[in-house]
């Protein structure tokens, strides 16, 4: 069965000891009130809530799924009560703007919270997460009046939000979008078109749903430069700003999916629905993209959370299940066999999961801190450096977290043997739920292109060099640290590898139009393994100093495992990348 305890010790270790987040928070007026104690208390409360409220609904939510009946969507039993508890405790407002009722908590804290809600009930988590995305977008681009009207109700969780981008014929390529927005005399617009794959497009959790919809104005330029953003409420507001008349937007059906069955994935039909423009005409895609960096890391965390619950469950099973005897001699003489955790190969699986999960948690916190700096710092240079780092690492985090997340869930399932395949045990659900994270919010192929093309090639590798300089600076500063002396050479090599591959990428990009796309995915993976190596070294350095840290030995050993058994993958990926694009493009389409 699924076992989960919020990994509070590790979260605190990362936040407080490795990154000393409270120092950064204290240095910025917007976050000055967030102390270590407050952060600890929030994490502790979050842990109780996810374990007590969300986890118990996870299996049954999967079995039951959402149901659709004539435009009405019913979420699985218990979701509505859980949602009410969740919002009454204030979790929907956690990182909202305080000017409109949000709590203004930093992203570096929110990422840890998001990991927990994904771990315990990723279907449920998507409803508030989508609302978060919508509020971020409104906060950045809507008029003051719109913000005053919508944000407080969305932060309180009384209303939910969605993002409506995809249409039947276009997802990745939004330039060929068809949904139309026709202006009315009163300044509003009539929106008509069909959107698909809309997460939380319709449900029974809230009194209203605020759709953020991409559509084209009449005479808009073709392609992605002719797209505008509109706010389309499910219920139009009456004179007292309460939900009144139903707007012309309906859920046509819900998808039958592989996983996240408790999350309603909707076809939304807009039939002259009234909407109001958010931001400037034809600038909709840019407006939508402001929240992408926040959203993408949150979706990456789906992989991390599921990877962790899968890990914790696998450890319990491996300690419990008696099969075979340890190769080095009997470990459980009074039992009929030894617990499988004594077998080398089972340990390989468990440590792989753990090393990837903890590396991911550290990277999430790191990117969270950069997001906080970019948003709240008063130092313009620090802000701009942090923005650059966020832009560089967001695609890495989204894709690497979700790819490794699926990998981790598959390993967890494997540890359970046949039980892993049987639904009651819960392990196969994690695999099914994790699979979507590689696809939505921009497939991982798109993330890799974003990284290699836009974030690396377009600025001549400047952002990567800035990152490498930081990492190498850290290595130099820790040269004499005996606790990590054995892994520093491998870390130096890994950083050099990333440097070399970046140079290759830049060289090839000039001469071969397909070069970037052909090697982007491997490049992103190498980046992921290298940055985990740096973060593992940092965690090991911190742990070796924290002599009173109860998990010190485990941290050091897992880090060593990472360097010895997982980091070699970066070198294999490099060899694949160096093979170039010709091997993929040579074949004629018909010959496939």
């Amino acid at each position, binding site marked *: 069965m699924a076992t989960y*305890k919020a*990994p509070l010790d590790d979260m605190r270790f990362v936040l407080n000891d490795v990154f000393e987040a409270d120092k950064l928070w204290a240095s910025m007026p917007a976050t000055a009130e967030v102390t270590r104690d407050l952060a600890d208390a929030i994490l502790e409360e979050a842990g109780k809530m996810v374990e007590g409220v969300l986890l118990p609904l996870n299996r049954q939510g999967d079995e039951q799924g959402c149901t659709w009946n004539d435009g009405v969507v019913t979420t699985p039993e218990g979701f509505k009560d859980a949602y009410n508890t969740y919002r009454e405790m204030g979790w929907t407002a956690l990182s909202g703007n305080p000017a409109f009722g949000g709590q203004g908590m930093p992203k570096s804290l929110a990422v840890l919270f998001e990991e927990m809600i994904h771990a315990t009930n990723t279907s449920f988590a998507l409803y508030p997460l989508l609302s978060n995305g919508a509020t971020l977008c409104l906060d950045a681009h809507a008029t003051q009046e719109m913000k005053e009207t919508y944000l407080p109700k969305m932060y309180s969780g009384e209303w939910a939000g969605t993002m409506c981008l995809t249409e039947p014929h*276009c*997802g*990745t*390529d939004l330039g*060929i979008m068809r949904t139309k927005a026709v202006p009315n005399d009163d300044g509003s617009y009539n929106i008509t078109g069909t959107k698909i794959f809309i997460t939380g497009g319709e449900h029974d959790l809230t009194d209203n749903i605020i759709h953020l919809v991409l559509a084209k104005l009449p005479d808009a330029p073709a392609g992605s430069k002719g797209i505008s953003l509109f706010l389309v409420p499910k219920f139009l507001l009456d004179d007292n700003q309460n939900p009144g008349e139903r707007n012309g937007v309906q859920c046509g059906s819900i*998808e*039958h*999916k*592989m996983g996240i069955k408790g999350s309603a994935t909707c076809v939304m039909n807009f039939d002259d629905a009234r909407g109001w423009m958010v931001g400037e005409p034809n600038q909709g895609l840019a407006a939508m993209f402001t929240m992408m960096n926040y959203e993408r890391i949150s979706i990456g965390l789906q992989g991390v959370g599921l990877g962790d619950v899968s890990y914790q469950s696998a*450890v319990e099973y491996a*300690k419990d299940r008696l*099969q075979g005897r*340890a190769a*080095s001699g009997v470990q459980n003489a009074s039992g009929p066999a030894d617990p499988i955790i004594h077998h080398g*190969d*089972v*340990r*390989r699986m468990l*440590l792989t999961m*753990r090393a990837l999960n903890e590396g991911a948690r550290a990277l999430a916190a790191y990117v969270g801190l950069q997001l906080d700096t970019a948003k709240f710092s008063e130092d313009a240079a620090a802000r701009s450096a942090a923005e650059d780092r966020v832009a560089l690492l967001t695609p890495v985090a989204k894709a690497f977290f979700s790819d490794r997340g699926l990998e981790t869930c*598959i390993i967890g399932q*494997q540890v359970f*043997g*046949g039980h892993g*395949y049987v*639904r009651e045990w819960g392990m*196969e659900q994690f*695999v099914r739920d994790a*699979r*979507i994270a*590689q*696809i939505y919010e921009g497939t991982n*192929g798109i993330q890799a292109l974003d990284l290699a093309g836009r974030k690396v090639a377009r600025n001549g590798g400047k952002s990567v060099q800035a990152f490498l300089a930081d990492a190498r600076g850290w290595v130099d500063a820790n040269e004499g640290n005996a606790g990590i002396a054995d892994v520093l050479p491998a870390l130096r090599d890994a950083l050099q590898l990333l440097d070399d591959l970046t140079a290759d990428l830049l060289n090839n990009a000039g001469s071969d139009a*397909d070069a970037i*796309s*052909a090697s982007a995915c491997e490049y992103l993976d190498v980046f992921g393994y290298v940055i985990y190596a740096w973060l593992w070294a940092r965690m090991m350095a911190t742990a070796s100093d924290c002599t009173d840290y109860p*998990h010190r*030995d*485990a941290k050091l050993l*897992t880090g060593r495992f990472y*360097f010895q*058994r997982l980091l*070699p*993958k970066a*070198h*294999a990926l490099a060899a*694949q990348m160096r*093979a170039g*694009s010709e*091997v*993929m*493009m*040579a*074949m*004629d*389409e*018909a010959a*496939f």
Partner: protein
Amino acid sequence: MAAYKAPVRDMRFVMHEVLNIEDHYKQLGVEDVDASMIDAFLEEGAKFSMNELDAIYRSGDEEGCTFDNGTVTTPKGFKEAYQKYVEGGWPSINGDVEYGGQGLPNSCGIAISEMTGTANWAWSMYPGLSHGAVATLEEHGTEEQKATYLPKLTSGEWTGTMCLTEPHCGSDLGQLKTKAEPQPDGTYKITGTKIWISAGEHDMADNIIHICLARLPGAPEGTKGISLFIVPKFFTDGNGSVGERNAVACGSIEHKMGIHGNATCVMNFDGATGYLIGPENKGLNCMFTFMNFARIGTAIQGVAHAERGFQAAMDFATERLAMRSLSGPKNPDGPADPVIVHPDVRRMIMTTKAFAEGGRAMIYYLAMQGDVVRQSKDEEAVKQADAMMALLTPIAKAFLTEVGVESAIHGIQVCGGSGFIREWGAEQNLRDAKISTIYEGTTGIQALDLLGRKILMSQGQALRVFTKVIHKFCEANADDEQLKPFVEKLGSLNKEWGDLTQAIGMKAMQNPEEVGGASVDYLMYSGYICLAFFWTQMVKTANEKLAAGTTEEAFYKSKIATADFYFKRLLPRTMAHKGAIEGGLECLMAIEQDHFMF
């Protein structure tokens, strides 16, 4: 949903052009099988798989099996398709002529198994398990047992199962508890609970013959005290009619991630009458006939899911228009280019193609080795083929299913959001695939079998059986300029394989845990080299065909391009596995059990 298209051209390429199966049959003394007969088989098998089985692929998944008071009902259409399969004579291809079989070599049936399996894996498991039961009875049954059970099992009117796993033991069968008590009439009363019995109960056949492991009273502990029994669902009069019900019943069926159309049963044996197969306490040895059969069957499953992932991806990638090619529009009249023009999409599709086609060659090669073991009169050849199968079976089972799962994941990814939606079938392919790395011995168990039992226990002799073949191939083709890039790489990896094995062997002598620490990485490493060997052979054939002049230039060139991709973009993964093995054991075992979680 992408309809399954049986890759008949590729099957003919592997069987006739690469592996020269006709010559192989001549050498075995099988006179009546020629290329045209094989081609006819392939055509008919393709039709059956595409028309009858693919049609119930999605509906079988949605509907699943249902259980009601001991009775299992298979999804709509399963029974009818099975009847047609039986009427078509498909179950009996490899069966012994004496019992109504067609007596053809195993390799004649392998492509049929692949096609039925790819079209509908859940369905194909019902006949698949019967094949294993037939092989076990042929090899270990008494004349009377054979006469009683083989005719109906061979014709497919009855089906078979293998009953090993119990609630507390799967990988570790030494803990088995099911009891067999001898009766005065020479039969046994079998009592115990078996779980995860595929096709343990269903409505497709008149009788089900369970091949069941149990313990005699006073039997030695552990795996040396296990015997094997036949337990029929219905008693039979020896002439093929079924009579009274035996005391074996299905207690429930599992709710699973995938293969919903296949009934995974809890089977309760409550003093059921059973008949001993083979000697007392040698049951596990006899069962290994079945298990080896099933392991190769599961290796086919890896190829099936790679092929299905490939086809789903291709279908979507050629239809779906998104973005323009970076090297200029390829579909200037449309709003965007088909996604297959994008290199990253190609990377995913070519990965599935390289695994499906490379895996196919490996499986068919393995099936031919099986022919030799079963039918050759040349003792030395039998010994050699037997050793080859012992080495390659765990690699094929674990490696091909692992890359089958990977391919299914790519198949979904290429389809984007649609890949996650059930109607499209791509996600079913992954759900169905995931069991293949678990059952019939998990990947971890196969890896221990390969490295521990097969290779290190024979001081590396088991590996040399195959590395010698590769070495000879490389030597024989050393002067082939066109083949050189492949041969050189293959040759150097082949040598590295031996060296790495030796290094692990040295460490394992110091510490037996080394085997478990290295085993899965070692197996995957080995799998990549095996596929490199088969891909090199395929390139050689393609080169020859192109040099000789052909109307199918595109086909052969695509073989070479796929091999090139495999060598440059997939084969480097051996570096990561080698690196992980060299990372050693200490980092695995040092951590305290209680420090795994906090």
